[in-house]
Structure formats: structure tokens, C-alpha cells
């Protein structure tokens, strides 16, 4: 079928600004089951050799061809033309976000790899090295396959909401990598790692927006891994920089108490009743709410049957104690 690829071009060597960055449309005859990468290669080989992109394996394993198609990051070798077609048979192709463009669809990935480096991304066992292999359960290894399936394509970093605001955030890929070690029974530095990841820019800065979950072409579920790191931080009782654990604790307490969330109590319990500066910082917001007669009351009525909620909550904790870990779905 006849399609149009609208490609964001960037040529740093151009003499004038309008020639540096612009959109260019290419018409391609694309077979029905072909991928956007097939079309890009077709253009590069037979229409315009100057169109610049990275690609290699064409089988979603090398991680070279992550770009944005119709505004969202993904691997072009895994994106079917049919599914990407918008109005008038046009597909919009742009370089990844949150990373500087080198040329056309090629971005500088040093930010990505700097973040990976920052999480000490290598196994750190403790104790003497055994002569044979380290013993580990197949279940644990299989669980790690999920996160080891990360091919470092950068799609999650491209579309990360927090990185867009704050380049200090470690970001989804690096934190997923961090989880790969925390969840590896052979690694002996869990506590040190969690302490490190607890700092500003770490696990508590994620907004849980799931952009990374959505765009990851390998099902790595980076945000899910960050949440598992938070669970670990909670289990270890690590002090975090940002009230994250206490926020979750206060949340659980609130639900346990009344069956539902009490927002005012949540805020006070998160920061601590005597954390006056932090509470004062919230004051203007609270004042405005009170003025509009919508300040949530500190004294909530519990839901009917709150005892049932409490029983379920303690039973769930019991299951965890008996099994030694939290039940997880496949």
C-alpha cells in the first residue's frame, strides 16, 4: 500500500536554522505486513541516503531502532505499518525524547548509559567465590528473565514523565537494571543498594504514570520494578529522603482504620505531626481548600464492615509470612 512517512529531520551541519530542523515527507510502497523500519530502510537505500537512523537486527533484540512513532517511543522493527497508519495514511516518525539529537533519528544516548552506570550495574556477591556455580532456584532465575529482557533501547527513558522535568531522576531503565540485582539471590548488597536508590532522584521520584510500561517493547515493566524496589525498601525499613515509605505506611494505616483514605490524616502522618515546616508548607493549599469548604475532615467515618477489611489485611500479611514472600501472579 502507498503510505507517507513524515520524518523529523535534523542536520547539525546545515548553514541556516530552517535547514537544520524540519519535517520531510516520503512516499513509500509498503507491503501490508511490513514494519516502519522496513519503510525507513527502503527510504535510506533507494530514496535518500542522507536519512540517518540506527538499526541492525530487525528482530527486536539489539535495541538500536527506538524512535517515536506518532508521538510515542517504540522499536521501529516491531511497529507494523498497518497499526501505525494515521489519517491519510501518514505515519509520523521522530527521534526519541529526553535525549539530544545527533542527526535525524539518531540521539545521543550518554544520559541513558550514565544512569545505568550510576546504579552499580554488576553483581556484587559477598563471601568467598565457590568453585562451582552459586546455588539459586530456577524460579528466581526465571523471574529475572523478565527484567534481563531489557535491551537498553531507550524507549522508556524517551517517554519518562519525570525525566522530562528533572534530568536527575535515575529513570526507568536504570532502576529496572537496579532491580535485576536486588532481586538476584546471589547479590549481597541489597541493603546498600536500596539505601542508595532511596536518595533524591531514586525510586521515590517515579510518578507511577506508566509511560514506561506502555512503551517498553520487551515487557520489562520498568515501573513495576520500581514499585518492587519500593516494596523492598519498605520491607527493609530503610529511611528514605522523601517520606516515600512513610507515605505508603500512613496510607495503609488510614485504610486499615477506616476502610478508606483519610487525606488530611495521610498528610500529617506522612510528614509527622511535629514536622512543622513541612506542614506549614502545605498550609496555603489547605487554607484555599478550607475557604472553598472542601478541606477534608480529620475525623472520617469508617465504612460499614471495616472489620472485614482489617481482617483481610492481616490475613494477607499472614500469607506472606507463611510463604516467606508475597504471592505474585505470572
Amino acid at each position, binding site marked *: 500500500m502507498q503510505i507517507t512517512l513524515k520524518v523529523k529531520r535534523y*542536520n547539525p551541519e546545515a548553514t541556516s536554522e530552517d535547514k537544520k530542523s524540519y519535517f520531510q515527507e516520503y512516499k513509500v510502497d509498503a507491503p501490508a505486513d511490513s514494519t516502519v523500519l522496513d519503510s525507513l530502510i527502503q527510504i535510506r537505500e533507494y530514496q535518500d541516503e542522507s536519512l540517518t537512523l540506527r538499526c541492525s537486527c530487525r528482530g527486536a533484540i539489539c535495541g538500536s531502532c527506538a524512535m517515536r512513532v506518532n508521538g510515542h517511543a517504540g522499536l521501529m522493527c516491531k511497529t*507494523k505499518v498497518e497499526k501505525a497508519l494515521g489519517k491519510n495514511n501518514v505515519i509520523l516518525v521522530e527521534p526519541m525524547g529526553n535525549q539530544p539529537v*545527533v542527526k535525524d533519528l539518531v540521539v545521543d544516548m550518554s544520559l541513558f548509559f550514565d544512569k545505568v552506570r550510576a546504579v552499580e550495574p554488576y*553483581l556484587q556477591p559477598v563471601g568467598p567465590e565457590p568453585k562451582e556455580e552459586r*546455588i*539459586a532456584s*530456577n524460579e528466581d532465575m526465571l523471574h529475572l*528473565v523478565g527484567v534481563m529482557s*531489557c535491551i537498553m533501547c531507550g524507549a522508556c527513558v524517551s517517554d519518562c514523565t519525570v525525566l522530562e522535568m528533572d534530568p536527575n531522576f535515575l529513570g526507568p531503565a536504570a532502576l529496572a537494571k537496579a532491580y535485576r540485582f536486588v532481586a538476584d539471590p546471589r547479590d549481597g548488597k541489597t541493603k546498600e543498594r536500596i539505601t542508595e536508590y532511596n536518595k533524591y532522584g531514586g525510586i521515590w521520584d517515579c510518578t507511577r504514570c506508566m509511560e514506561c510500561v506502555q512503551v517498553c517493547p520487551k515487557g520489562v515493566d520498568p515501573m513495576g520494578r520500581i514499585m518492587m524496589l519500593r516494596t523492598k525498601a519498605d520491607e527493609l525499613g530503610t529511611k528514605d529522603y522523601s517520606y516515600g515509605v512513610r507515605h505508603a505506611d500512613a496510607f495503609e494505616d488510614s485504610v486499615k482504620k477506616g476502610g478508606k483514605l483519610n487525606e488530611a490524616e495521610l498528610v500529617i502522618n506522612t510528614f509527622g505531626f511535629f514536622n512543622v515546616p513541612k506542614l506549614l508548607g502545605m498550609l496555603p493549599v489547605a487554607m484555599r481548600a478550607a475557604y472553598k469548604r472542601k478541606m477534608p475532615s480529620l475525623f472520617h467515618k469508617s465504612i460499614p464492615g471495616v472489620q472485614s477489611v482489617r481482617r483481610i489485611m492481616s490475613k494477607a500479611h499472614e500469607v506472606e509470612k507463611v510463604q516467606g514472600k508475597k504471592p505474585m501472579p505470572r
Partner: protein
Amino acid sequence: MYQHDVLVIGAGLAGMRAALAAQQAGADTAIITKVTPVRSHSNAAQGGINAALTHLGDDWHEHAYETVKGSDYLGDQDAIEILAQDAGRSIIELEHMGVIFSRGPDGKLGTRHFGGQQRARTFYVADITGAAILHVLFEQILKAKTRVYEEWFVTSLIMEDGECRGVVAMEIKSGKLEVITAKAVILATGGCGRVFEPSTNGLIVTGDGMGLAYNAGAPLMDMEMTQFHPTTLKNNGILMTEAARGEGGYLLNSKGERFMEKYAPTFKELASRDVVSRSEQTEINEGRGIDGCVLLDLRHLGREAIETKLAYINEIAIDYMGFSLADKPIPVRPGYHYIMGGIKTNVDGLTKIPGLYAAGETACVSVHGGNRLGANSLLDTVVFGRRSGEHAAQMVKSKPAPKVSEARVQQDEKHIKALLDRPANGDSVAKIRLDMGNAMTENVQVFRNEQGMKTALADIKKTQERYKKVAVGNKGKVFNTSLIFALELGFMVDLAEVIVAGALARKESRGAHARTDFPDRDDVNWMKHTLAYNTENGPKLDYLPVVFTQWEPKVRSY
């Protein structure tokens, strides 16, 4: 100008393993790679890595023998013994580094079956073994803080007084050429899969190391031994791992018969790759194929096994064919996959040129001979990667830093300028590569013959002539991939010629080299390695005896 003791070219499994070994042995080591390390094609190795682990009750002699048999007795047995003996500790090393190998019920390493071997001795991570090891080696490179020249393309080896003293390379981002001197250079650039079209290999697999060595005067060995993988996907040629059959998958013809029972009554689908590919091709040629394919049927393995042990190929099936392997058999056919040949090295990775080493698919030690067993390639990369790194690190200790004039870059700058200045003539690098790939696939296939290969040779010569006149369509400095493709094609048109020349000369059938006009193995005349030297008139062939230690050639049956 940069300077190192050991410079490794390529950041796949062999390259990173070599660099780690050299660095651990105390050498100032750097890696130079045309792509970011985790992009290397080692990623695409799916099924596993072989080793006979003594503490799990296996015996390296068995592994060695089956490798010798798989090679159709063309592999050098001294090298194969080293490969098999070193395998165990290599696996344990990888496990200690952090590879998440599959486990048995006791928590020790678990294995799966692979082709050409009686015993299950293939260690694996689902069906992403290559990627899983590659990423762990990258973790180790980050830990070791090894200097990596990332996205740099090597344009030539610096040869002075008959030895290799470094490289000239282009930083792709800026287009700038630099001299990097080294007391030892280790080539670990992988195979040359893009010589064929289609190919399971990624677009970056263009034989750069082989080309660089060949141009520098090092001989290439057994280049006619090219492996066609029995299960590559119908349309795009993507690999479907041998583990699919290792886990119990069937191959079916159009009549629904498990035809391998006919060709390999004992091993069936798990005969060695050359045997399975020939059987498939025979079925297809005799009219029992389906649109040029046979079927790989995994349905009886059950959804759960498919989704855990073969998740990646299942993802491929869903993405590219639109169905799960648990629901339908998938059409596959033999497709170009691997080259057993490469730069001739000894068991320490040293080539015929002092200061120049090679390891992995780019090298030919030779451990694979006429046909490589599945899951022996990953083993080859880590065993001989490490040996090269260690040997190079020892060698450089007594060697002074080479003095190379910075003006050496001008030679390559001139070459590149000439390439860029050529006027457009309507031809293109892409068209030439496609014609080359088609010529090879048409006539240097699973089955070969004199007439077909002569046609191929003439076709390749034409592409060489066209290459001398082709223009580069992009003249920019920054990230000029168009220029890179032109340089790569320069290597490939020569390597294609070497493959065909060696194949034409070898008048017998051995391993993956199956000639319809010479259907039998001829141990009297052809139990020898082919060597190819670069001359102005194309490759000059020479021969080298095969090394035997304990296994006499026998008739090969599976």
C-alpha cells in the same frame, strides 16, 4: 592520537571477554566498536552455550568428539580439545559474573538438548542466552571501567615492518579520523552475514575484521564453510532457535510427516545443522514443502513451556506472523546464519601477522571445521576471547609502545575523500549489496555445483567493478551512515569472492559444503583447510593439513 597496550575491535561476546581478560592481566586495554556494546549481534544467539561440566556428570571427551564429528572431521582436534576442556570453567565464570542461567530442581545449573549431541549439555537463559550473556559481560565492562570507543569505525590496520601497530578509525559522530596505536590488536568483529541475502544476521554484520585482516595480508581459512540454519522465519529470515527442537519441536513437510526420521533415524530433528538443512531443502526440492518452507510444530509442548522457555521466538511469531507457537506450526526454511571460516589463528588467537589477534566468529581456530554444532559458537567466543586477551596481555609486557606517525591518517582520509568525491552514476551501495547477496543465495546455497558457483563468481566480480565506481549519496561529516555502508561493502565484495573461490576449488562434499556434482566426502584429497591470501588478482588459495589427536575420520551418520 590515542595509545593502548591492547585494543579490541568489536564489543560482542568475544570482544568483551577478550578485553576483560587483557585488562585483568594488567594491560591497558580499550575496546573500539562501531555500535554501542549491547547492540552487537551476539544478542541474537538464542538457544544456549555448550559445556561438559564434570560435577554434573558430563565428560569433555564426549563433547569434543561430537564437535569433531559435527565438523565433519575438518576441525583441528587440538583446538577442539581446548574448547571442550575449557568449557566448564567458562560457564562457571559466566555464572559468577551474574548470568542468570536456568537451574535444575537442586538449584544447580540446568541443561537442554541441542543438535548433534547425545547428551543435554546446553546451558541457557530461556531463549535469550546470547543477549543475557552479552548484557552481563557489558555489566563487567562497566565494572572494570574499560575505555570504550563507542561508535567508532576502524578504516584500516596500521601495518609497519610486517606487524600490526594499531588502527586508523573514524569517530562516527564527528567524522574525524584518528590514529589509535596498540601493541596488540584483537579483532572480534563477528561474521560477514550480510554477504548473503536474506540472512539471520543483523545489518551490522559485515565482516569488517575479516576484511581488515585480509587487506593487511593475513590469510582467511575455510571461508567456503557457511552454515545455513534449518529454522529461519519465512519472510524476513529471522532466526527461530534450535532450542525449539531441543525442547522437543517437530519438523513437518506438506504431508504432515516428521521427515527427519527418514534422514537421521536416531537424532531426528536434532541432527547437526547441515544435515537438517539439507533434509529440509530436499523435501522442498522434491515438492513436499509449503511455499518454499517446511513447518516447525511446537504445539505439543504446551503453552506454558512455550511462554517460559521459548518466549522470545514466541514473541517473534506473534509480532511477525500474527499467531502464537502454541496455536499453529510456523513456516521455516534454511537460511544463511554463520561462517565456520574466518581469519586463521592459532589456539591463542594469534593470526599470521605479529601483533594481530582474532577471536569469535571472525576467527577460524578451527573448532567448527565444516559445520558448527549449535551452542558451540557462544562457547567459542568466551574460550578463545579470553585466551586471546590473556595471550595479548602477556605479549605486550615485553614490547615497547609503537611509534606511529600521526600523518598515517592521511592515507585513509585520502581514500575516504576519493569515495565521497566520486560523481553519482545512478548505481548505489544498496543496489550492489543486494545484487551480491542475491547472487550468493542463488548459487552458493545449501546445495552447490560447479556451474552455479561459476555464475556466482562472475556476478561477484561484476559487483566488485561496480563498487569501484559507486558514489556515496551523503557527503556530510556527522554520523554519515551512507559512508560507513560504502566502506563495509568494500570488505564484503572481497569476502564474497573468497567464499566462492574456496567453494569452487573444494571438489567434495563436507559439512555445510554440499556439492551435487561431488556428493561424497573425499578424505584422500580434501582432508585439509583452505587458506586464502589477498592479491591484486583476487584470492590466492593454499592448503593446510588438519590437526588430528585422537579421533580417526569415520562415516558420519545421525
